[in-house]
């Protein structure tokens, strides 16, 4: 083999710099946006930059943020899941029904809650497994499969709730509520769970074989198949991971209100997908970052927080402002590939 000749040193160095710079801008773009929002929020209302408010925003971000981390895996692998909001509602409802039912025969409320939590996580994993099997073995578009289950999940919750709300028994609720309301080292539990989920997600995505395979499949599924990657198993696993994330988010959400109704988790799928996209993950798959998703989720809830604290724009227009942000971000990223 001939030795590799060196390319023109100057031109390639200048090119490197430009490339690294443009790569970095895409990575730190959402972070810059978040910082600017923070400055604007502080300027508009002095209450914004208080520790209490920031912890409040992060706690509220946790549900969507955890789901968005799972969604990042699905989207990077080239898939999508529209059902997560309905899935959260159905898991919440089923979990409450189960806990109410066993509370009569099991004396320890703590055990009831533990069983409820395990049940929620297993149910999420099973829903994800069903999605994954229908998509890979059944060869149906992920958009269609999850559009279908979006309807199915919410309809069953409504049916179980008889159109109203499913409410957790008081005794169990008293034991369960600290999962949402209490703090560790001054930081609410949901934020800790969000943080741990993000760290584990980032590690799995960037530093494991599995994460590399997810990116390879999203970049080009056919090439991955020819490179001996077990495409179906990896894809099924992304939906299972997302299902478990939805389970975790629901486990944190239920003690907050202690009930589930047909409006529980409404439009969560949009917020989760938006967080992923705002965070710089390409909707067509192949590349993305967990850190970006976390920032994307926080950015979206900071927007609604600022609208709540100030009176410049009506709170009712929250979704509209978020929509504008999503479109702006997509516009800035459009030339990326």
């Amino acid at each position, binding site marked *: 083999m001939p030795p590799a000749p060196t390319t023109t040193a100057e031109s390639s160095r200048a090119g490197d710099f430009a490339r690294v710079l443009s790569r970095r801008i895409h990575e730190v773009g959402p972070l810059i946006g978040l910082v600017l929002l923070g400055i604007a929020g502080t300027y508009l209302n002095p209450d914004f930059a208080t520790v209490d408010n920031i912890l409040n925003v992060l706690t509220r971000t946790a549900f969507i943020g955890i789901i968005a981390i799972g969604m990042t895996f699905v989207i990077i692998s080239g898939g999508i899941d529209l059902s997560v909001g309905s899935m959260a509602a159905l898991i919440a409802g089923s979990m409450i029904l189960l806990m109410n039912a066993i509370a009569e025969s099991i004396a320890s409320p703590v055990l009831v809650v533990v069983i409820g939590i395990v049940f929620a996580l297993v149910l999420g994993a099973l829903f994800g497994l069903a999605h994954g099997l229908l998509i890979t073995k059944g060869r149906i578009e992920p958009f269609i499969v999850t559009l279908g289950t979006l309807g199915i999940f919410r309809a069953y919750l409504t049916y179980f709730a008889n159109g109203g709300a499913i409410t957790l028994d008081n005794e169990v609720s008293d034991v369960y509520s600290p999962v949402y309301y209490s703090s560790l080292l001054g930081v609410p539990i949901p934020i800790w769970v969000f943080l741990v989920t993000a760290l584990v997600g980032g590690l799995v995505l960037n530093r494991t074989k599995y994460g590399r395979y997810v990116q390879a499949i999203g970049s*080009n599924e056919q090439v991955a198949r020819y490179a001996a990657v077990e495409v179906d198993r990896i894809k099924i696993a992304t939906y299972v991971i997302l299902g478990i994330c939805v389970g975790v988010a629901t486990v944190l959400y239920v003690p907050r209100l202690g009930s589930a109704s047909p409006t529980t988790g409404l439009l969560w799928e949009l917020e989760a997908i938006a967080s992923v996209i705002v965070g710089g993950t390409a909707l067509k798959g192949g590349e993305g970052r967990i850190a970006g998703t976390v920032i994307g989720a926080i950015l979206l809830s900071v927007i609604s927080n600022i609208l709540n604290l100030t009176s410049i724009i009506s709170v009712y227009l929250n979704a509209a402002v978020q929509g504008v942000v999503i479109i702006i971000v997509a516009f800035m990223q459009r030339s990326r590939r």
Partner: protein
Amino acid sequence: MSLAVEFRSVVKRFGPVEVLHGVSFRIEPGRVVGLLGENGAGKSTLVKILSGYEQATGGDFTINSTPHSFASSREAEHEGVVLIHQEFNLAEHLTIAENIFLGHERVKGWLLDDEAMNAAAREAMQQVGLTVSPATRVRDLIVAEKQLVEIAKALSRNARLLVMDEPTATLTPSETERLFALIGQLKARGVTIVYISHKLDEVERITDELVIMRDGSFVTAVPTRGTSRQQMANLMVGRDVSDMYPVKDPVPNAAPLLKVSGFSVPGWAEDVSFDVRPGEILGFAGLVGAGRTELFEGLLGLRPRRAGRVEIDGHEAVLDTPRDGVRHGIAYLSEDRKGKGLHVTLGLRENLTLVALDRYAHPLLDPAAERRALRDKVAEFGIRTGDLENRAASLSGGNQQKLALAKFLHVDPKIIVLDEPTRGVDVGAKRDIYFLVQRLAREGRAVIVISSELVELIGLCHRVVVMRAGRVQGTLAGDRLTEEELIAHATGTHDHR
């Protein structure tokens, strides 16, 4: 009237990178000019500037002594300059007629005049010898027919200078013959033709003169007559390509490493049997569609298959997925580099280690070890890249192929199947790949080479299996391994002995 072109110090920069450094030469009217150069020499960029797909950064060109610069391919077409792309520019879901008139639709009032367009399309198709209905959808055509549609489209726009970029890359020998006859007719009508190809035998046959480019510069222009292929190759590479193929080693007398018997892939291959020994290079010849690629895809579980027995090292092996193949020491490098071979949007490192990723997971991946492996392989395979952090898309065709080879050889397979390993690869890289194949065989591996280039199979392989319509027509070796015999078997015109 025929068109003459003169390039005057054409410079092209992409950002800070200059890819054409002041190219000047003339193309005489009504001639067939071969444009030769290795991948990355700047041929494609130059013809894109000529046909309006790119604009020169500096310098210009004249057409019949008038300076021109085309802002779009449409402007170029208006002057009669048409480029036929390597990858076709056809809308698969539209009909032939709709494609031919795309952007130039004929209308009757507010509505499309399909009748007139179909009639005019039929006329253009007749000139190129395409006999199907103009209402056929392009996706239903075979590759050769799509190419004819491209040419018919060019003719219907009154092309007087036709640039063809690797037109025969996906054609069978008989389709290539048809294209050459057509080129002859076009030339007789005064159309100037610029012909870009890596296949020197074709260039030798079809062109009147040659323009050679290297590293973004014009090297020389010579008449084709009196220039040997050896000289062409030397001019392109800029050094002496003394002999393209390594001397064949004798095959060690050993039991077959891979033995396939009675293997069938429904719709593609029927009752195929062959074996290959360690140290042997076994070729697979046949026309496009003979089922060679599909046979091996079926063998590795990438396609449904039926019946057949596969023995590896004397033991029956069940290969249901490519993963099983890797476990049994078989690697398959696809002919479709961008579609099945490499992740062009991922980095070089991620591509190199993908198949052998187990080795870098403990259980967390070790990027530093991956980077070391990449540095080693870049040196070992002679992959030319500016930056190791680049995406695979930034490499030229030949270097992508070397990376793909490195990727599939990274699992250290005993049996290696290379499907069209030198397709779209320049002369220098081809030679590197041939010597690599020999090295692999010398190391005691069994190498299978599927190729449409007969010269390559003859120069490289110990034995060649010829397939036709999914069946093995014969296995040629020694004195019988000639172009004539290969073609006769591939087309089914050999005498059955």
